[in-house]
């Protein structure tokens, strides 16, 4: 972490201490030993962005501005008011970017290549990382579902909504796309065969393979962090239970045994534990179970309908959606303290998905996709030109 980021963190510690604290959870500490506290930056850094020069300067300036604005971490202001100055030159292929502080000390002076748009995102990510000590997310991809064509198809785009590409055209129903940790594969549920099966798309060549098609339901796949396993829901043994299968195929290993419905597995970053939904106690609640086998433990969350868990990449939090008064709100709980934070307040907000910085989340509301800062609650619509969008998932 840079000294700059350290200072900023210290300054804003008070802010994190008075963060919304509602409920307390008792969780066995060894189960979540991998959880680490995250850096919380609640203040905004004042930056000045001089329009980039060069043949693609204007387009690159807009992309860079958007990349920095959507995070809620920066306040773009005049050179006089700013503590950080950003300049650069953009051609069709590359960006030369310079970042200095007020005293002229160079923080970044680098050329990024691979096409101006990608290069701009890389520059944005380096700015974020150098100034805040947390990873940038501008180079992330998002996979999601849109029913604009009349049926639910899978798509992929840049996190700013550009470069939308349709991945399936099955005229069936495809739901729940989730990236592998490397971001090169997407697992999802599809009724393409007529039955609900689990499929994997290899993004390098767009090949698809059906990895699970047992009798009954095959749904909700999630790659393990090392990519070797896929957790999913199967009913082949007579009830909807959680299983893992080898990502390359193989016989399933059963993780749960209940009379209810188990769904939506999400992995702890160390691959030891899964959080998931079970309605075994009447209404859907979140539970955890060890991959090696254990008695499921309920996460104590104050809501009677809690679904869609997503474990943050730093292991410290689980995001989920809660249902209350006919609406759905995005929330998360700290693993270490159980402190519950409700992030949205109105509408039907669904499918939270952490980005790689463990601070910003994607979610869907009324057919649109949004980026949400879990600290400031700034919510930014992601304009992708499509309607009826659901189930966003960010590459990490």
């Amino acid at each position, binding site marked *: 972490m840079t000294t700059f980021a350290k200072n900023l963190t210290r300054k804003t510690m008070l802010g994190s201490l008075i963060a919304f604290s509602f409920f307390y959870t008792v969780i066995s500490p060894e189960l979540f030993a991998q959880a680490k506290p995250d850096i919380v930056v609640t203040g905004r850094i004042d930056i000045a962005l001089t329009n980039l020069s060069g043949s693609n300067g204007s387009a690159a300036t807009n992309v860079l501005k958007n990349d920095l604005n959507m995070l809620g971490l920066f306040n773009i202001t005049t050179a006089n008011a700013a503590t950080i100055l950003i300049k650069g030159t953009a051609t069709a292929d590359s960006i030369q970017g310079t970042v200095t502080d007020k005293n002229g000390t160079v923080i970044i002076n680098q050329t990024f290549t691979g096409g101006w748009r990608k290069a701009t995102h890389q520059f944005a990510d380096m700015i974020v990382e150098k100034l805040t000590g947390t990873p940038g997310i501008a180079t992330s991809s998002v996979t999601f579902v849109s029913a604009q064509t009349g049926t*639910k198809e899978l798509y992929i785009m840049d996190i700013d909504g550009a470069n939308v590409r349709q991945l399936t055209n099955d005229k069936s*129903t495809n*739901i*729940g796309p989730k990236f592998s940790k490397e971001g090169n594969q997407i697992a999802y*549920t599809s*009724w393409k*065969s*007529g*039955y*609900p099966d689990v499929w994997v798309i290899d993004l390098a060549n767009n*090949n698809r*393979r*059906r990895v699970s*098609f*047992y*009798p*009954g*339901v095959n*749904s*909700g796949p999630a790659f393990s962090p090392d990519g070797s396993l896929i957790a999913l*829901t199967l*009913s*082949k*043994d*007579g*009830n*909807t239970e959680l299983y893992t299968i080898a990502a*390359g*195929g193989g*016989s399933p290993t059963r993780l749960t*045994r*209940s*009379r*209810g*419905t*188990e*769904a*939506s597995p999400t992995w702890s970053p160390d691959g030891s534990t899964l959080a998931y*939904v079970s*309605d075994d106690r009447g*209404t*859907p609640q979140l539970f955890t179970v060890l991959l090696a086998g254990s008695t499921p433990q309920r996460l104590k969350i104050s809501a009677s*309908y809690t*679904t*869609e868990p997503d474990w943050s990449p730093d292991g410290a939090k689980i995001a989920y*959606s809660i*249902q209350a008064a*006919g609406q*759905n709100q995005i929330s998360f709980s700290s693993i270490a303290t159980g402190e519950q934070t409700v992030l949205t307040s109105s509408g039907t907000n*669904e*499918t939270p998905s952490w980005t790689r910085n463990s601070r910003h989340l994607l979610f869907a509301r009324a057919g649109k996709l949004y980026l949400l800062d879990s600290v400031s609650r700034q919510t930014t619509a992601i304009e992708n030109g499509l309607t009826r969008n*659901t*189930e966003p998932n960010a590459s990490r």
Partner: protein
Amino acid sequence: MKSTILSLAALAVCLSFTACSKNVKRDGTAGDGTYSSGAGTDGLYNQSLPGRIDGSNPELANYDTLQAYVVLFDFNSFSINAAERSKLNAIAKWMTENSSAKIVLAGHTDARGTTQYNVGLGERRALATRDYLLGLGADGSRLMTITYGEERPAVAEESEAAYSQNRRCAAGILP
């Protein structure tokens, strides 16, 4: 590479059918209580499903014949309501009278709730319906399940009246 994937897929199909042929026998004696083991849970809930029927596509199932017997559920519930039992009796009777017919039980949810959980809930409704029919002596090897979650509402409206029609399990006759 492609052929490897294909042969793996073929192997997986074989394996799943091998497993199923065993289960068909077990399901055939379902009424006698021959269930797979399941410590601490009701045996019915651990009975393996019959394999998918080769070449059958539930998209082509006929849901018209047994349409009067669509089983309805309460919000967020997979319990069979007493008011629905006569429908299940009728399905079981129809199965006895049409002893070669294979049935797919399609579980659905209303639009409230979240996508992935509703996929599970829909399957759970289909399984609860199947369990009830097994209890009436129906032949489990002729009872497939499928879930559509909230994806295929019977009434595409956002109202309590529509929701109550969408929380259902429909019996389709497989071609």
